C-alpha cells in the first residue's frame, strides 16, 4: 500500500515532467524555427501521437513491471533533461535540425506513453478498476495543470529552457530512485537500478551546474529576444536571435539587421548605382558576409561575376550552410557567379589586380580603431585602382541623423581622395535614418540605368527623396578620416555615446 501511494505521487510528478518536455520542445521550436502556431501545433500533435504509440507498445512490456517502469523513468528523465541543451547545441551544427527535433519529441512522447498504462498495470491489484482509473488520471491531469502554469510564469523567466528541462529530468529520475529505495533491498536488480539512477541524476546535476558555461545562459535572452545562434569567431561574437519568426543578427552586440526590414537596407546599398550605370557586370562586395547584398545583386541578369570579401569565416559558413539563414539570403552565397574570399578587406584590396563596375562596401560601423581603418583616406585610395572609370562605389556610412558628423566625415573622406560623391539616406524601422555614400571617379549624373523589377522599397521616387538631406542631418566642418587621426571613431563614439 505504501508503494501504491508512492506510485500515485509518481504519476503526478511524471505527468508534470511529461508536459514540461512537451512545452520545452514547442517553445524551443518556436524560438528556433519561428511561427509559433505551427511549431506548437506540430509538436503537440506529434507528442500526443507518440504517446499513443507508447500506450500501444506498453502491452509488449512484460516481466518485472516495476523494474521496467523505473528504467523507463530513468530514460525519460535523461532524454527530457538533456533535450533542450542538446537541441540548442545541435541547431548551430546540423542542417537537418527538424528531423532531430521531431525524433527527440517522438522518442520522449513514446516513452511517456508507456508510463501510464504500465503504472496502471502495476497498481491493478491494489485498487478497484474504477478507483484506479480515477486516481491515476486525476493525478495525471493535476500534474499537467501545474506544469502548464509554472512553465510560463516561473520556469522560463527564471530558469530558462535548458535549466528547466534539466531540473525536470532530475525530478523524473528521482521518481525512479525513490521507488527503488522504497523497495525490498533483497533484489539484486534494485541495487543495480539505484546505481544507474544515481549516476543519471548526478550527470544531470552536473549539467545543471555547468549549463551557463555550455550555453551562455545570460545570452539566451538577449535584448528581450531568444538567442538561436551564438558563435564566437576570432573577430567577433555572432548572435542570431529569433522572435515571432523575425531574425536579428548582432555582431559584438550591435544590431546588423532585422529580417523584417533588412530588405530596405540592402536594396538601398545595392540598387542605386544601377540607376547611374546600365552596364554593371563585375561587382565586388566588401564585408556583407550575410549574403544579403549578394541576394540583391543577383536580381540583375547582366552581372557576370560577384566577388565577396569577408573577414569572418564563421559568418560566411553560417549564412551559407544554416538552412534558416541561407533562406534569408535566398542561398545567394551558393550562387555560381559568386566567388567568396575569406580575407581581410584592407589586405585583399591592396593586392587585388582586378577591376569592377560596382563596389559595395558594407563594413560594420566605425566603433573601434580596427574598423576605423577601413574608413580612412588610405583605404579609399587603395580602392581607386579597383574601380573602372565609369564604376561606382557605395559605402554604408552610419546614420546621418544620430551621427551626422560621422556620416559627413565618411563622405568628406571619400571626396578627399578624388571621388565625386552622392550621399543619400533611407528610413529603416529597426535602426532609424540610415545613410550611404555613392562615389565615382566621374560625376554621378547620368540616369541611364534602371532598377531591377520587384523591389519593395527602392524606386525612382524613393531614391530621389533619399538624396535630399534636411537641416537636422547636416554637420559643420568635418575632418578627413586618416590613419593617424582616426577622427571618425572619435566622432562616432561622441555621437552614438550620447544616444546610448
Amino acid at each position, binding site marked *: 500500500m505504501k508503494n501504491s501511494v508512492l506510485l500515485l505521487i509518481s504519476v503526478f510528478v511524471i505527468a508534470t515532467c511529461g508536459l514540461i518536455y512537451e512545452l520545452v520542445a514547442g517553445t524551443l521550436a518556436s524560438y528556433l524555427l519561428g511561427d509559433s502556431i505551427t511549431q506548437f501545433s506540430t509538436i503537440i500533435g506529434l507528442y500526443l501521437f507518440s504517446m499513443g504509440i507508447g500506450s500501444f507498445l506498453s502491452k509488449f512490456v*512484460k*516481466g518485472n513491471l516495476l523494474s521496467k517502469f523505473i*528504467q523507463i523513468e*530513468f*530514460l525519460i528523465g*535523461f532524454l527530457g533533461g*538533456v533535450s533542450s541543451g542538446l537541441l540548442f547545441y545541435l541547431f548551430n551544427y546540423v542542417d537537418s535540425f527538424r528531423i532531430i527535433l521531431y525524433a527527440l519529441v517522438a522518442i520522449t512522447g513514446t516513452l511517456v506513453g508507456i508510463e501510464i498504462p504500465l503504472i496502471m498495470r502495476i497498481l491493478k491489484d491494489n485498487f478497484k478498476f474504477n478507483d484506479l482509473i480515477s486516481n491515476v488520471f486525476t493525478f495525471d491531469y493535476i500534474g499537467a495543470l501545474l506544469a502548464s502554469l509554472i512553465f510560463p510564469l516561473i520556469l522560463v523567466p527564471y530558469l530558462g529552457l535548458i535549466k528547466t528541462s534539466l531540473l525536470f529530468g532530475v525530478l523524473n529520475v528521482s521518481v525512479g530512485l525513490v521507488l527503488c529505495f522504497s523497495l525490498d533491498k533483497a533484489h539484486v536488480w534494485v541495487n543495480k537500478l539505484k546505481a*544507474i539512477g544515481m*549516476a*543519471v541524476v548526478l*550527470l544531470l546535476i*552536473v*549539467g545543471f551546474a*555547468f549549463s551557463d*558555461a*555550455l550555453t551562455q545562459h545570460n545570452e539566451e535572452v538577449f535584448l528581450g529576444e531568444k538567442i538561436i545562434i551564438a558563435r564566437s569567431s*576570432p*573577430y567577433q561574437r555572432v548572435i542570431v536571435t529569433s522572435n515571432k519568426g523575425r531574425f536579428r543578427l548582432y555582431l559584438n552586440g550591435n544590431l546588423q539587421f532585422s529580417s523584417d526590414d533588412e530588405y530596405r537596407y540592402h536594396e538601398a546599398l545595392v540598387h542605386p548605382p544601377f540607376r547611374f550605370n546600365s552596364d554593371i557586370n563585375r561587382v565586388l562586395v566588401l564585408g556583407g558576409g550575410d549574403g544579403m547584398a549578394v541576394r540583391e545583386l543577383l536580381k540583375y541578369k547582366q552581372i557576370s561575376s560577384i566577388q565577396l570579401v569577408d*573577414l569572418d569565416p564563421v559568418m560566411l559558413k553560417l549564412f551559407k550552410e544554416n538552412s534558416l539563414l541561407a533562406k534569408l539570403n535566398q542561398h545567394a552565397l551558393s550562387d555560381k557567379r559568386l566567388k567568396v574570399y575569406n580575407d*581581410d578587406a*584592407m*589586405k585583399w584590396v*591592396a593586392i587585388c589586380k582586378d577591376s569592377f563596375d560596382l563596389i559595395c562596401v558594407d563594413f560594420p560601423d566605425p566603433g*573601434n*580603431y*580596427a*574598423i576605423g*581603418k577601413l574608413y*580612412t*583616406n*588610405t583605404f579609399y585610395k587603395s580602392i581607386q585602382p579597383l574601380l573602372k572609370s565609369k564604376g561606382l562605389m557605395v559605402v554604408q556610412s552610419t546614420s546621418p541623423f544620430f551621427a551626422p558628423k560621422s556620416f559627413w566625415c565618411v563622405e568628406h573622406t571619400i571626396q578627399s581622395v578624388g571621388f565625386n560623391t552622392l550621399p543619400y539616406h533611407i528610413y529603416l524601422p529597426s535602426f532609424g535614418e540610415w545613410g550611404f555614400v555613392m562615389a565615382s571617379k566621374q560625376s554621378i549624373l547620368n540616369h541611364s540605368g534602371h532598377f531591377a523589377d520587384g523591389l519593395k522599397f527602392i524606386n525612382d521616387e524613393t531614391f530621389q527623396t533619399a538624396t535630399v538631406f534636411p537641416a537636422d542631418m547636416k554637420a559643420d566642418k568635418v575632418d578627413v578620416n*586618416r*590613419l*593617424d*587621426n*582616426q577622427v571618425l*571613431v572619435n566622432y562616432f563614439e561622441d555621437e552614438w555615446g550620447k544616444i546610448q
Partner: protein
Amino acid sequence: MSDSRKISRKTFVKLGLLASAGAGIGIWSWSKSQPEKSNQWSLNSVNNNADIAHMMRDGIHIVPNQIIEMPVVILGAGVAGMSAAMHLSQAGMNEYVLLEMGEQNGGNSVSGSNDTSAFPWGAHYLPLPNLNQPELIDFLHRSGIITGFDANQLPVYDEINICFDPEERLFIDGKWRDGIEPESALSSKDIEQLESFHSMMKDYQNSIGSDGKEAFCIPVHLSSRDEAFLKLDELSMADFCKNNGFDSEFLKWYVNYACLDDYGADADTVSAWAGIHYFASRKGKAANVKTGQCLTWPEGNYRLIQKLQNNIKGQSLSHQLVYKVDKVNEVYQIDVYDYKLKTYKRYQTKQVIAALPNFVCKRIFNSALIPVESVSYQYYPWLVANMKVDYRKLKSNGVRLSWDNVVYGRSSLGYVNACHQHLNYSESLLNLTFYLPIKKGEASESRQWAGSQTKESWKQLILNELEVAHPDVNEAIIDMQYKLWGHAMIAPVKGFISAKLRKTKTPSQGLYFAHSDQSGISIFEEAFYHGIKAAKSILSHV
C-alpha cells in the same frame, strides 16, 4: 519471453545509460576545457651575440694568412655603417666591404618576428625628419616612404608609415588616459608647470646661436657652438629643472621618462643640453603630417634597415668579428674572424669607416689610432621583451590600447603595440614590445646587475611592471622572449656633447669614425648623418 530478449532489453537500457554517461562526461570535460587554464607561458632569451663579443674582449691573437685588398672597409652594419655603404653605392663606388659582427645587419634597429607579426628589438620609430638633412629626405623618398613633394617643397608621406591614432596613453591614478600628459589626472600646478616648461622648450626650439646656427639641431653636429647654450651641457637635466623652479612631481617624472626614452639614462645622469635637445630639436615638417608626429612600423626601424640594405651594392658580410685594427706603412690591417665559417682573414685598405661604438673601437684599435678625448663614454643596459598576448584577455581600465602605452611612475617605459601599424584587422593576437632601461648605479654596475639576473627574475620583474596596469596580464600572455642589451646606447652625460661640439679631434688619415657615439645621442638621424659624412669624405678623396 526468451532470455536473449530479456538481456537485449537490459543491455539496451544499460547501453543507453552508458552512452548518456559518456556524453555527459564529454560535455563536462568540454566545458572544463573552456575556462582558461593557469597560464604557463615560457620566457626565452634571444641571442645578442654577447658570447661572440666577449671573444673580442678576451682577445684573439691569431695572425690571419688570408690577405684581402679592399679599397674601403666599413666596420659595423648598424645604421651608420649601412648609410655609409648606401651613399658609396649611390655614387657608383661599390668596391667596399661592410662587416657586421651579428647575424643580422641593423645594430640597435634589428627586429624579430613570430606568426603574429614582426616586432622591434630596439629602435622603433623615427620622428618626422627635419628638412635640414637632404640625404635623409632623399633616402625616404627613394624608399617610397615619402611619395613626393607639394608646391612648397614639403615632403608628402605615405600615411601608412605615420603612427596611427591613438598614439599614446598613460596609466595614472588607476586608469589608462589619453595622451602622455593627461590633464584629467593632473593638478593645476602640474598643468601650469608643464605649460611653462613646454613654452621654454619652444623658445629653445626657435633659438639661434651667435654663430647663426640653430641652438638645438638634429644632427647635433650642426648645432650652435654658442657658449650660452653649450653651458647647459655642464649641468644635469634634473638640476636644470630644479634651477628653473620646476618641482611638479608629474613634470619631474615626465622629464625623467623623456631622458630614459631617448638616452636610456635618467635626468640626473644626462646633461641639460641633451635633455632639452629631446624637446627642442624636432622641427620636422611635411605636407600631410604634423610636426611632432613620428614614423613607425611593426618591425620598428628595421624597416629603414631593409630600405638601406636595398641600396647597398657592395659586399655586405655578417658573422664577422673584427678583432684587431692596426696601421702599418699607411695601410690599415683589419683582422677578422668569421665565426660561422671559422676562418681568419686580414683586410688591407687605405680607407676605413669605423661605424662602431667607441667601447668596441677602444678594444680592437691600436690605441695610437684613436684620438685622445677627455669625455667619458657611458652605456647603460636595456632589456627589451616581446610578448605575444591575447588582447581579448588583456583587461584595460580606461582608454583603449595605443601605440605607446606608458605607466606613470615606473622604471620601465611601458610597452609599444607592434601590431599598431597593421592595416588588417588585428584585435585578438598582438605582439607588445616592452622596454626597460636599467639603472642600478653607474653604467658598469648596472651592466653587472643586469648580467646577474636569471630568466625567472626577469619574468618576475616584467610581470611586476605590467601588472600595475593590467592585473590579469599573466593570463593574456602567450609567450615572451627578451633581449638584453649590455651596452644599449651612449648616454649624453654632463660635458659630453659640448666637448664634441667645441672641437672634433682629427683621427689618423683615411680613418673615419662614424657612429652616433660621435654625437652622444643614439638616434637614427645621428647615425645616418655620420655614415653619410664619412662616405662623403671618402668620395672626396677618390
